[in-house]
């Protein structure tokens, strides 16, 4: 549980930087850092202010062959990432949860999925079973994300119409479990943090008021988290991120 009192947050951030948290608490902070800019700033404070204590020792002598080893392994890592767009489950496991809201990789992945989107668009009208009474303003393809924070391919499609109707289409099997729900969030202001667009009704649509619709822009992040049945009680995500991705403005021409 990430505390809300500033002093407690400073202590937690300090313990995190000092390396004093157990594995579970550390993972919780890592995950929170992706969304919680205030906590990230408190962590950065300690990282920077304590750094001189590390730097005071000077340097150790590095094995001259070490760079060649790193460079060799870099090649295989990048190839592995390159394969990701074709075969998402093969993505190497890396705990880069932090700052995921702003991750260019996410952006690139979303862009790379344009082809997939085109295919999906072809099936959308029937699956969403709604008359196209209002043209689409934005799409967002959210990537599935496992408990370790790894993305494993497209998991959810969000369609936002010009009249504010938000429809969602699951692309992956998901069972929130008894007493749990899926809640949709968006982030347009880092300082404010994620804002709820509502609990996802099974197969239904959410309607956004015009002023909220106006805040949605190209590249804006959306995520779906696991929450209590009635949605998060505190107005911020409390559960882990199940799906995450960015909005993309719909093209104006018809298919």
């Amino acid at each position: 549980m990430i505390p809300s009192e500033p002093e407690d947050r400073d202590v937690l951030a300090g313990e995190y930087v000092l390396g004093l948290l157990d594995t579970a608490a550390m993972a919780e902070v890592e995950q929170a850092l992706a969304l919680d800019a205030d906590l990230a700033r408190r962590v950065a404070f300690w990282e920077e202010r304590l750094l001189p204590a590390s730097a005071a020792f000077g340097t150790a002598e590095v094995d001259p062959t070490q760079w060649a080893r790193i460079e060799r392994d870099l090649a295989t890592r990048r190839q592995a990432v390159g394969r990701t767009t074709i075969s998402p489950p093969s993505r190497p496991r890396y705990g880069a949860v932090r700052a995921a809201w702003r991750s260019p990789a996410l952006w690139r992945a979303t862009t790379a999925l344009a082809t997939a989107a085109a295919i999906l668009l072809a099936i959308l009208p029937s699956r969403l079973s709604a008359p196209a009474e209002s043209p689409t303003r934005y799409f967002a393809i959210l990537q599935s994300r496992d408990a370790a924070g790894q993305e494993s391919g497209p998991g959810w499609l969000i369609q936002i119409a010009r009249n504010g109707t938000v429809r969602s289409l699951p692309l992956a099997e998901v069972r929130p479990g008894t007493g749990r729900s899926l809640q949709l969030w968006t982030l347009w202001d880092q300082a404010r943090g994620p804002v709820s667009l509502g609990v996802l009704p099974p197969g239904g649509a959410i309607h956004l008021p015009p002023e909220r619709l106006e805040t949605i822009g190209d590249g804006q992040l959306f995520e779906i988290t696991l929450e209590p049945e009635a949605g998060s009680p505190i107005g911020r995500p409390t559960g882990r991120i199940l799906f995450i991705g960015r909005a993309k403005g719909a093209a104006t021409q018809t298919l």
Partner: protein
Amino acid sequence: MEPLDHASALEGCARGDRASLRRLYEHEAGFLLAVALRIVRRRDVAADVLHDAFLDIWMRAETFDRRRGAGRAWITTIVRHRALKHVRAAGRETDLDAALGAEIADDTPDPFAALATSQDGARLHGCLAQLDADRRQVILLAYVDGLSQSEIAERLGTPLGTVKAWVRRSLIALKDCLS
């Protein structure tokens, strides 16, 4: 060596520019290896930590955000977390004494003394100096040597609950002093 703009180098890494990673390596590998060595206490393990950390830096560079913090602190955190992960997984208590004797027993500098003479360390030194010696040591044993709270309790012969309380109070005092 020319001064390095860490943030720009990390942004280069995020774009897939290998020369940027190489620049970071050339400037910081010796420093980062010293950080890792101090925690893992074995040269072969420290070299592995450095290796894995540079792959991490390459893979995670795109999550670096210069508005949130300094690049040098960011890469140091990656190395420290790699090193901590190793010592926690290895259950260091069992081989700490042997490793201490073998590798760095006699030339381990006292971090508090080293801070006093370092260029950037004056402020941190001044704030640490305001803490009681025991509480100061708790912070440095954790940050510099990578000890867990139970390891610190054992090292200082102090109950774990006391160590936890010292950590909290020291952090609150340091936050105030360093802000």
